[in-house]
């Protein structure tokens, strides 16, 4: 099966290669930029619940994300893009390949192939780099489903923009399912899931990969109001058995109002929401002490809604409400958890920001809520970052 997919893709590529006339490639200098995202944080309880790897997750100062981006057209057929992350942990520096992929520029029929290491295009939040987040920290539900780093892996993606009167994009991808950037699949934080040890599973066939299908649509409700909506479905193996699998379904909605005559992009209002449900099929397991656990299905769901109001040039106020059913075997919090956040961001220019955020975080297993305050600051040097919608 695996071989037949690969063969189909290679054949496909070969056909397209033939169909493309040879043209002289223009050479460009790569676009280079460096984005630094730092924060200062304080929590009412040092044992708080910020699990995102790019969250301000300790009292004091955190380097949230230092990202070097290199991008440019490779030749007339491909664009290449790489995002390298430099991090600091307990005084030690490290480097991570966050994303590195190429995208085809000119396949016929509205098709596009992306290959390399990339964020899975599930919903709106998962593919975003931390400096593009509207809040200082990652959503609870995203962290719960996709881990501290978000869901990303080496793989290939095929997408199509359909020739319809409105925007409809179909996206399908196949990626590796292992490693800590594939939480919910062949990786569980803590090496066990619901008491079951996580097995080492190699890729035997196509069933060991992680598959995404996504439908994304967009409508301009008026000249100043645009809507984007999508559904995403993920399917992949998990590490609690030889044939156990996980499915995650999500819906997302984004609406933006901005008058045509906006002054430097202000004012504007956005509304965004995502809801996800995971069905995790845990396998049978015999533990070291002889206990036998039978096969079981675990369901987890949650959502967030958020709204931003760019009320005055350079100023944006945001509110976010989140809820997750944290009876999840991988979540250290248990019971229902909800969190309300508000923030205020000042943009001295397009290349810097300063953000103040407050979180009220309540979970069933704690008597007291956790209060958190973040001050976040960002700088961007180098190539002008593109503004995606």
């Amino acid at each position, binding site marked *: *099966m695996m071989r*037949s*997919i690969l063969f*189909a893709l290679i054949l496909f590529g070969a056909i397209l290669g033939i169909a493309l006339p040879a*043209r*002289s*490639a*223009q050479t460009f200098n790569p676009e280079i930029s460096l984005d630094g995202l730092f924060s200062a944080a304080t929590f009412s309880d040092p044992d708080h619940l910020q699990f995102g790897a790019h969250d301000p997750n300790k009292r004091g100062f955190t380097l949230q994300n230092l990202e070097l981006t290199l991008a440019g*057209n490779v030749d*007339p057929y491909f*664009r290449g893009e790489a995002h390298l992350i430099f991090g600091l942990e307990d005084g030690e520096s490290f480097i991570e390949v966050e994303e590195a992929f190429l*995208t*085809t*520029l*000119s*396949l*016929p*029929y*509205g*098709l*596009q192939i992306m290959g390399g290491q990339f964020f899975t295009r599930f919903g709106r939040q998962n593919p975003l780099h931390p400096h593009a987040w509207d809040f200082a920290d990652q959503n609870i539900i995203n962290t719960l489903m996709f881990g501290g780093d978000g869901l990303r892996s080496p793989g290939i993606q*095929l997408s*199509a*923009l*359909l*020739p319809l009167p*409105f*925007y409809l*994009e*179909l996206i*399908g991808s*196949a990626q590796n399912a292992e490693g800590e950037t594939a939480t919910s699949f062949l990786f569980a934080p803590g090496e066990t899931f619901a008491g079951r040890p996580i097995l080492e599973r190699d890729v035997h066939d*196509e069933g060991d990969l992680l*598959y995404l*299908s996504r439908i994304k649509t*967009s*409508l*301009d409700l008026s*000249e100043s109001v*645009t809507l*984007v909506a999508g559904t995403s479905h993920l399917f992949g193996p998990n590490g609690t058995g030889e044939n156990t699998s996980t499915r995650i379904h999500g819906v997302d909605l984004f609406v*933006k109002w901005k008058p*045509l*005559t*906006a*002054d*430097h*992009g202000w004012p504007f209002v956005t509304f965004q929401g995502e809801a996800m449900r995971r069905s995790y099929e845990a396998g049978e397991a015999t533990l070291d002490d002889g206990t036998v656990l039978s096969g079981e299905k675990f369901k987890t769901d949650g959502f967030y809604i958020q709204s931003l109001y760019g009320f005055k*040039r*350079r100023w944006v106020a945001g509110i976010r409400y989140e809820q997750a059913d944290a009876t999840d075997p991988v979540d250290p919090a248990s019971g229902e958890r909800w969190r309300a956040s508000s923030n205020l961001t000042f943009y001295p*220019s*397009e*290349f810097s920001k300063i953000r103040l955020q407050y979180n009220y975080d309540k979970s069933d297993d704690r008597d007291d809520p956790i209060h958190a305050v973040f001050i976040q600051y960002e700088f961007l*040097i180098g190539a*002008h*970052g*593109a*503004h*995606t*919608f």
Partner: protein
Amino acid sequence: MRPIYLIASFLLILQIARPVEAAPVNVVTTTEDLAAIAKEVGGERVEVESLAKGVQDPHFIEAKPSFMLKLARADLFVQVGLELEQAWVGPLLLGARNGKIRSGAPGFVDASRGITALEVPTEPIDRSAGDVHLQGNPHIWLDPMNGKQIARNIAEGLKRVDPKGAAEYDRNLAGFSTRIDAALSRWQEKMKPFEGAKVITYHNSWPYFLKRFGLVAAGYIEPKPGIPSSTSHMRELIALIPREQVKGILMEPYFSDQAPKFLAEKTGAKVVPLPPSVSASAGVNDYFELFDHLTNRLAEALR
């Protein structure tokens, strides 16, 4: 989950949904000014649409998904260039997946080609100087002579994607250039009494226009490109206006009128709202009407 079925159904849908080849050449431009010129050059053979509306600031356009769809169907794409659209055109072109119009392809036109850009930084510069355009000031369409070069660039693009129309495009281009030459002497005649007159502009959008018509920018409301005015900068402008005998404060309609109005109140200089683009104002429906309107408004305001 059978991914091969997913791919197969993808291809099936695409086959069914394949569009019928439309007859006119489909031209998509980033701005209304380019669209107006493309209509002059393309005539009957083309259908032209602009992504940005004339009332919008071309630096700050949303990369809406519906724009990708328009670009996906385009035979020719025209951008101003000189980094004017760099914050939003890249993602649109990539999302459009249209090989015909990717940069370097025959259907891609950079309107600034062959135009001598003003204000190209001559010494090392960084962003402490604001959001400067390193390739020079991109507001090139505001000089009618540049309009002729833009028309030439578009005609070349049209001939590449529609060689059958070459004769017609050449004819239209020649006609457009002749009409620009005639109109230019009329516009210059009208502006002659104001030669050397000083104005303040909001953003540095007018250097091509001012140079062509003999006006001088004595200052800008933005202390640095893209940076909002501070109180100290306003104080400087209040002192500068009487000293330099500034006659008018030119303002693009999409900027807040707060600072220009404040300056006018303090100094008696006149705020002159000026549309920098076709369709940004009533009665400004083509490239000629744009300069008719601009020269009329200025002649009136500076009198």
